[in-house]
């Protein structure tokens, strides 16, 4: 495969190459609430999944809370940490997610006023695509030493992602408080917990804390893809400032996906690095 292929094509390639190319699927974390009010601490339930149907779960995502999953998924989960960042942008607490057959579920409690950030972070994970001696495609998560004897067409990819959402208890905190400087993140003066139908909103996309280049692809999908015939994906590209502008025609939950791939020079052990952001937004009616 040539290194000039886009992450989308890479994902497609992965799909055609393997039966269940989990990493090529979409991911999301869906909070029961994104806005909270009142003096008392309140809890929000999170559902997370690896799936191609937006907000309709297929496989769990994360299991540090005592559930079960198949060995392939458990290998992915060993690289996955779910955590919540407090409104100060610093205090982080691990979230316990329990894997069920189709999704992972956990609770978070919000004690203070402000915006909390939910992150399910997958550290760079080595995925090796190859062909078995009989020519059938396969892939493993792990090291070259774990490949079957006689494997051919070996390609090593490093895959990482952030699966995120924001929740605001009473008054919102500016996004700038939350910039971690690691991976793809949203920034700018707009707020992910102040989204309404018919009000376009512009977010800055950051990669490792710096605005991304112009022309980076992003995809916005309205939830419920399972129950309509067209996905109606909004194909977006960053402008010169590294910003994207989102338009919401309907109220509900949306998923923003941004993928950045960096090919690694020839002769390197690793073919390419892929990093993705999957960000869930809730949009309210006027």
């Amino acid at each position, binding site marked *: 495969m040539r290194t000039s292929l886009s992450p989308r094509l890479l994902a497609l390639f992965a799909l055609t190459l393997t039966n269940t190319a989990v990493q090529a699927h979409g991911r999301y974390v869906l909070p029961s609430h994104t*806005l*909270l*009010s*009142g003096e*008392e601490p309140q809890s929000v339930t999170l559902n997370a999944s690896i799936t191609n149907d937006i907000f309709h779960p297929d496989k769990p995502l994360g299991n540090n809370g005592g559930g079960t999953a198949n060995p392939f998924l458990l290998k992915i989960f060993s690289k996955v940490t779910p955590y919540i960042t407090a409104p100060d942008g610093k205090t982080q607490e691990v979230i316990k997610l329990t894997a069920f057959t189709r999704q992972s579920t956990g609770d978070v409690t919000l004690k203070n006023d402000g915006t909390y950030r939910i992150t399910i972070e997958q550290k760079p994970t080595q995925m090796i695509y190859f062909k078995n001696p009989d020519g059938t495609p396969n892939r493993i998560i792990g090291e070259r030493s774990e490949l079957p004897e006689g494997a051919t067409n070996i390609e090593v990819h490093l895959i990482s992602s952030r699966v995120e959402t924001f929740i605001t208890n009473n*008054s919102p905190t500016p996004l700038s408080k939350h910039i971690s400087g690691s991976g793809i993140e949203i920034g700018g003066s707009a707020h992910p917990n102040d989204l*309404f139908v018919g009000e376009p909103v512009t977010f800055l996309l950051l990669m490792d804390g710096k605005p991304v280049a112009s022309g980076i692809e992003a995809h916005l999908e309205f939830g419920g893809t399972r129950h309509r015939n067209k996905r109606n994906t909004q194909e977006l590209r960053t402008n010169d400032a590294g910003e994207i502008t989102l338009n919401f025609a309907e109220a509900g939950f949306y998923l923003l996906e941004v993928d950045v791939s960096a090919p690694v020079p020839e002769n390197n052990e690793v073919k390419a690095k892929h990093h993705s952001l999957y960000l869930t937004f809730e949009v*309210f*009616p006027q």
Partner: protein
Amino acid sequence: MPTFLSASLRSVFVLTGCLITSLCQAESIALSVTIPTLDVDPYHRPYVAVWLETPERKGVKVINVWYEQDEWLKDLRQWWRKIGRSDAAAYEGVTGATRKPGTYTYEWTVADDIPAGNYVLCFEASREAGGRDFLRQAITLGGQQQQRYQLEGDYEFGAIAITIQP
């Protein structure tokens, strides 16, 4: 007399008129808000917020909020985003319990710190296990004429009558 001077004189006169009016009797907004009887079971009384915002949709003043528990204030979504969530003090003195179906009339004396100009009067109702209604009416404050407006809610509000008395 040059027209320039005459225009200035006129504005001085108008300004004085305003001043005298506001001294004698402050501008007021009389409201009549109907919460309709709904044939639903279970029925919960709606949470209601009435407030003033700028034409740019920035919250200015809360006129009243009828609610029971602050946990559900967020469901008055527009009011919550514009005023409620960032400034609890802004509605501290104007809250009340939710009301049963009926027509409620009350008067709000336009606060001294609100400059004359164009505003939007907003009405939002949200009901547990029910729906939500959001009505807006452009108004002018500091004018010389009485203004009357009649709004009709979709479901959670019935008729709303607004009378602005200079």
